[in-house]
């Protein structure tokens, strides 16, 4: 494979795609390439990377808006926000599940990766206010803008977020951000099992105390744990975590983790660390109805896989052998929810549907929408689905 193309300007991206369009030559599209092992392997002679397209282009803390070019490292965006006491609302995972590296903002948005705060603050895609991108014809286009409320025309921001570079190459992204809460604390409850844990999370999320993280670690050293996070002004956190503790007393003995421990706990939950997955193991995330989480975990255990729950029970992080049988078990357990093969050797990724298959009428719509943006199918062909 020849060296990746890494234009330093949007016009260079457009030219590269236009050339590929003319030559009918597929491109593998990536940022820093940290998530290359996610979804299906892409067959393309050339790679187009946005890594050189870097830098924050606009930051107005008082308007809660930041814009950066797609190749800007996520860490750089997060540092700029932290300097003003702000944060990315969706708390996206780092590249740790794929062995680390400096993930780019464009890659995180293109994968619509969200962390624990998804349950209260929304997904990465919810905060994409505007994008600039290059479609499969090499045309530079915009959708959305830089204001918080905008319903002008079709929302291509959400369509492209989570499309893994198959509909367009993101070149610049504008996001809504929020003030970073003054402090945080976590209620750690020793629960009987995952099912009891999810009941505790449901009770906590159904309380008026503003839970911003809700996870169950079934295999913690101390036994199954339910964790509920509160983030706010310091005096509010003290009050709310106390009220929450009283409310959830029936679920088991509990303790309160302070801010430092809370940060470490949720960074681990965000990045899949509790799975302690070996490099040869595969990783999945399944998104299910929260109260289905324990059933999914039990089915996976039967199949020799292990996992834990975030998002109130609705996000199942899974690790296990990188085999077709394990994948089939995940596929079956996640239904009628959704799943994503996060990481696996090429052979497995090429052989199985890495996300749920769509019923025929929806699959036809997928093909037509793909054709509307990338008529020759040159952008990341096959990354999400075989033949698309």
């Amino acid at each position, binding site marked *: 494979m020849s060296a990746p193309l890494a234009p330093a300007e949007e016009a260079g991206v457009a030219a590269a795609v236009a050339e590929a369009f003319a030559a009918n030559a597929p491109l593998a599209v990536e940022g820093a390439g940290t998530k290359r092992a996610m979804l299906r392997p892409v067959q393309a002679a050339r790679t187009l990377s946005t890594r050189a397209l870097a830098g924050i282009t606009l930051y107005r803390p008082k308007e809660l808006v930041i814009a950066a070019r797609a190749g800007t490292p996520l860490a750089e965006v997060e540092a700029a926000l932290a300097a003003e006491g702000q944060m990315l609302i969706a708390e996206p995972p780092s590249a740790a599940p794929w062995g680390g590296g400096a993930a780019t903002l464009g890659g995180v948005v293109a994968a619509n990766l969200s962390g624990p705060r998804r349950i209260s603050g929304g997904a990465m895609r919810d905060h994409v206010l505007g994008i600039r991108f290059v479609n499969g014809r090499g045309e530079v286009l915009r959708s959305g803008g830089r204001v918080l409320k905008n319903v002008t025309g*079709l929302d291509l921001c959400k369509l492209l977020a989570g499309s893994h570079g198959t509909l367009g190459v993101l070149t610049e992204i504008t996001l809504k951000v929020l003030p970073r809460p003054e402090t945080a604390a976590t209620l750690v409850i020793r629960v009987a099992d995952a099912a009891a844990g999810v009941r505790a999370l449901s009770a906590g999320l159904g309380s008026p105390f503003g839970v911003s993280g809700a996870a169950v670690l079934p295999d913690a050293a101390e036994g199954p744990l339910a964790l509920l996070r509160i983030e706010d002004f310091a005096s509010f956190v003290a009050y709310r975590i106390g009220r929450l503790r009283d409310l959830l007393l029936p679920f088991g003995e509990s303790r309160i983790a302070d801010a430092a421990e809370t940060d470490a706990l949720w960074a681990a939950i965000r990045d899949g660390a509790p799975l302690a997955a070996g490099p040869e193991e595969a990783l999945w995330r399944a998104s299910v109805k929260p109260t289905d989480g324990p059933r999914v975990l039990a089915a996976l255990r039967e199949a020799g896989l292990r996992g834990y729950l975030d998002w109130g029970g609705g996000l199942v992080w899974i690790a296990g052998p990188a085999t077709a049988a394990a994948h089939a078990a995940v596929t079956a357990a996640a239904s009628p929810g959704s799943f994503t093969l996060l990481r696996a050797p090429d052979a497995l990724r090429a052989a199985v549907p890495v996300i749920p298959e769509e019923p025929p009428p929806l699959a036809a719509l997928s093909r037509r929408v793909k054709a509307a943006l990338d008529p020759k199918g040159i952008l990341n062909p096959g990354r999400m689905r075989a033949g698309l």
Partner: protein
Amino acid sequence: MIRQPEPKPEVLSRRDEIVAALRALVPPHPLSGESVIADPLRLKPYETDGLSAYRQPPLAVVLPSTTDEVASVLRFCHANGVRVVPRGAGTSLSGGALPMADSVVIGLMRMNRILEVDFDNRLAVVEAGVTNIGITRAVEERGFFYAPDPSSQLACMIGGNVMMNSGGAHCLKYGVTANNLLGLTFVTIEGEVLRLGGAHLDAAGYDWLGLVTGSEGQLGVVTEVTVRILRGPEGARAMLAAFGSVEAAGRAVDAIIGSGIIPVALEFMDRPCIHACEAFAHAGYPLDAEAMLIIEVEGSVAEQDELLARIRDICAPLNPTSMKIAESAEQSAAIWKGRKGAFGAIGRISPDYLCMDGTIPTSELPGVLTRIGEMSRRYGLAVANVFHAGDGNLHPLIMFDANDPDSLRRAEAFGAEILKLCVEVGGCLTGEHGVGVEKRDLMGVQFTARELDQQRAIKSAFDPGWLLNPSKVFPLAQAAG
């Protein structure tokens, strides 16, 4: 009158046949009666929506009660090249539900059942014709609510909210419709019934939910919606801060957000709006102020006290002309009463008004209001401004007289100039009311021809024959095909 695509003569001439076919597909409802309306008098209520300056009776109205009936009507219209206009409550302020002479209106109001409430999973499954407030009413017994709260919430329906991606006064904290959806039952123009999303967050694959939300009835018909429901806070309370200048109120907004406080609502009213609302609602608004903020916070009583005190201290150096912190839920309601009645209040002092809906970067507010004031003098029409100050969504209410064609023409030109200004300062044409017919010819101000072509190509992927609500959103000359 707004321009519409040429009615198809072959459809108009087959009117009776089409009506008969629809009657066979959607039999009378056992309680509500006839399901297909073709009598001109009974078509009247469907000839316009919240943008009542424009009127056009459709060919017929059909009122299905099930997803299957919707699918069969769409299949028929698709096979026969008949245009379709979906309709919820018809409160669109951009003419989104305005019929065409050769169109069949599919009214979703009979699909008004709450199908499931699941508190443990914090979701509700409802039919498209359930009103926005109807969802909250179905879940409030356990302290839950459905967050997006457009001021039309007593009437507007969740299907319409999805298609317009509607917002509300509390979306600074809770987001708009798109941020509060989990799943849809969605019928394509071919009559295929699709389930998008479900009871889970973030389905892998293309974000159908995100694409369809806000698509203004142009991609398909929504028949069922799974929404997230949230547990309400312990309580909420409002305060009012009035200032001697628009700039000072703008600085207060910046300073509040800059302090790390995100109020659940942060509403701005200018002097004409304060006066109109006060005359209407007797809310005790300060008539000496140039601008006023309504700021609402949530939490326990102690938390409310602390937040309101902090906000008071932030505002104090900006020389407010008055401040009033509600001491009780009743006083809070009184502060909101004027704002909630703002549209009605303007309706009392002017026979007609156009409600504009641009968004601007919040820092641009003072300059934009100055220029709107200049335009008001130039067009000889009064204007009052309400503004969702936290998120930059500006609602200038332009007062005119619909019986005077020149007045309407000036009002439209005034409105267009405001929206162009919103785009010029970095904002957009519409923050929550949608493009509809009202703003479609301005789309070229915000988007390039290529960008509009791209959006059209996606519309064509869903609806190759451009039968679904075709006269909306895109400049007419290029709409079809």
